[in-house]
């Protein structure tokens, strides 16, 4: 299938010709052991669907970059298999895997012009000269840098360099594009702009993207699915909404966004859970299927789902609630965040208060409440 984009001049250009369907990347039992205390990557299985934008998210040292390097071939597998569209590539050297890669420091060749950089993968593949010229022009249009082909990388800004690197990594229609924290070196505004750019290019090129980042916001913005890494294994895989709304574990709940966490007194039953002597009701479908949840569980509620009332009588029936003291109010522009002292082991909770609601002040005795269907029971 042909990828078409509209250049600034308005004429359609076609960049790729065969990869619209993308490539499936399947990891099975992938392990990388450097002989340290714990394997860097420990028995990971993950299927990345053709054309999918998959983000490997996690704190540093969680194994996400090692996993990407294993897919790229820069690291050798200790055990397990990696298959592209069903064929095992575990023993292929990187230059035979036909995977594009984007690096945090751009890794442009400083002795080549922009055009020579972008032409490099085509030259290595012995593409005829006239076709090289055409495809380089097209892909530079696609990344919106059509007039910089004669410049050297050192003459470009960081954002422009990363666009050249992106053009170079997709010009040869790789089976998939691997992105290793490509926006990490850029400032905030530029990062947002390039996120938009990467999403657009993913849409237009349609090939499989595997994106590594430690920035949860970036992961949420970009991904079709996120694989959340934690110390060498995958904690949870799912769409950004799934990970945010339906975390399976405390780690997931804490890593993505703010959350109120209540460590339950014991395991939750099907309909109720106990916290600090209270009994909360559980809505169907809010209990994580994670096996750990049947042993030790916690209730997770997002701050935006927690309401605050002065009078306990104002709390709608059927809600779960907890008494609290307002410790502080943080003004966030469109809303305020109330920091709540929940009494027990000085635990602080967070609730969202309307920015215009001036009835709350620090020191108020309040009741924090939420609907049981907005909470999530996770493995603690």
């Amino acid at each position: 299938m042909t990828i078409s984009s509209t250049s600034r001049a308005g004429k359609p250009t076609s960049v790729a010709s065969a990869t619209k369907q993308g490539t499936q990347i399947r990891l099975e039992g992938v392990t990388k052991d450097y002989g340290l205390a714990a394997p860097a990557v420990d028995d990971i299985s993950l299927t990345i669907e053709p054309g999918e934008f998959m983000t490997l998210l996690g704190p540093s040292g969680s194994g996400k970059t090692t996993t990407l390097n294993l897919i790229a071939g820069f690291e050798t597998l200790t055990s397990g298999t990696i298959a592209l569209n069903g064929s095992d590539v575990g023993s292929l050297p990187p230059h035979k895997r036909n995977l594009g890669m984007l690096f945090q420091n751009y890794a442009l060749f400083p002795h080549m012009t922009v055009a020579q950089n972008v032409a490099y993968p085509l030259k290595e593949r012995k593409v005829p000269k006239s076709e090289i010229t055409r495809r380089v022009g097209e892909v530079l249009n696609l990344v919106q840098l059509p007039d910089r082909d004669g410049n050297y990388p050192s003459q470009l800004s960081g954002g422009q360099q990363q666009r050249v690197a992106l053009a170079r990594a997709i010009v040869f229609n790789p089976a998939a594009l691997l992105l290793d924290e490509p926006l990490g070196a850029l400032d905030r505004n530029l990062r947002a702009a390039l996120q938009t750019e990467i999403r657009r290019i993913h849409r237009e090129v349609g090939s499989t993207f595997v994106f590594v980042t430690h920035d949860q916001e970036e992961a949420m913005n970009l991904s079709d699915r996120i694989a959340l890494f934690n110390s060498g294994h995958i904690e949870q895989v799912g769409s950004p909404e799934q990970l945010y709304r339906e975390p399976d574990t405390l780690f997931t709940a804490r890593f993505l966004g703010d959350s109120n966490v209540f460590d339950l007194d014991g395991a939750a039953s099907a309909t109720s859970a106990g916290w600090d002597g209270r009994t909360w009701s559980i809505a169907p479908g809010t209990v994580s299927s994670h096996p750990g949840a049947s042993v030790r569980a916690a209730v997770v509620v997002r701050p935006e789902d927690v309401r605050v009332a002065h009078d306990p009588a104002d709390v709608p029936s059927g809600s779960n609630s907890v008494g609290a003291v307002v410790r502080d109010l943080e003004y966030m522009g469109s809303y305020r965040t109330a920091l709540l002292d929940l009494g027990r082991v000085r635990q602080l909770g967070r609730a969202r208060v309307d920015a215009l609601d001036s009835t709350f002040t620090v020191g108020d005795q309040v009741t924090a409440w939420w609907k049981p269907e907005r909470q999530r029971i996770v493995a603690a």
Partner: protein
Amino acid sequence: MTALDEHETANPATPTPAPRRPSRRDRGIDPIPWWLIVIGAAVALYFILPTLIVIPLSFSSASAFQFPPQDFSLRWYENFFTDPIWLSSLGNSFLVATLAAIIATVVGTAAAVGLDRLTGRLAAFARTLLMISLVTPAIVVAVAVYIAFLQWHLTGSLFGYVIAHAALGVPFVLVSVTAALGGFDPKLLRASASLGASPLRSFITVTMPLISRGVLTGAIFAFVTSFDEVVIALFLRSPTFQTLPVQMYNSVTFELDPTISASSSLVVVAVTIIFLVPLLIGSRRTKKR
């Protein structure tokens, strides 16, 4: 233009090509005090003067060394370029130095690239071994080479000169290429691999162009080291094969022939030109960027 372009080109009206970061020499430096200039000039003269005296000497017509020269003549140059012994010595020196420099450059570059990312004790040992000829007294090396080559029947042969001189050149290449690799980002090799280049192709298309200055510098040092090497050459000489330094040595010890001043002048000029080559190439490349 889309909104995101404006983000990046907020820096108003970036001309093409974009302005270069000011290089060090564009920036002002503190004025140099006069006494430092005097000391610097004295040291420079001390180094250069003996070399420069030989040049006017070579244009004298007197048949003994005479300074300052009384009159101007090219007879010693004529002598040099018509005497088959001088000419063949010069040719031999060029041949030996060129071949030795090529071998030293290949070996030294390979060693530098191979040892670059290694830190183990074995790598340190290998590095020391390759550098050893720098610190060993020339006469010791010469005697050792002579004894070995006598048994292998390599004395007086082109091959013998070449491999002995190549060994002397390797440390220079190793040092300059290692320094060049210090500024080389190994991530570039991951990039080239991901773009489909085999390790060999990556070396040719990415590593080599970026360390070429270091390689060239090393090659020149190796060439010059061989070109003016006299101790080993004296031991290895034969009636049929000798290098220019050996012939020059012969001419002062046995004949006191002023032709040596002509040949010395030629060597000075040749070596100066050789050392200027990378500077010229460098400045042209900087302009291109």
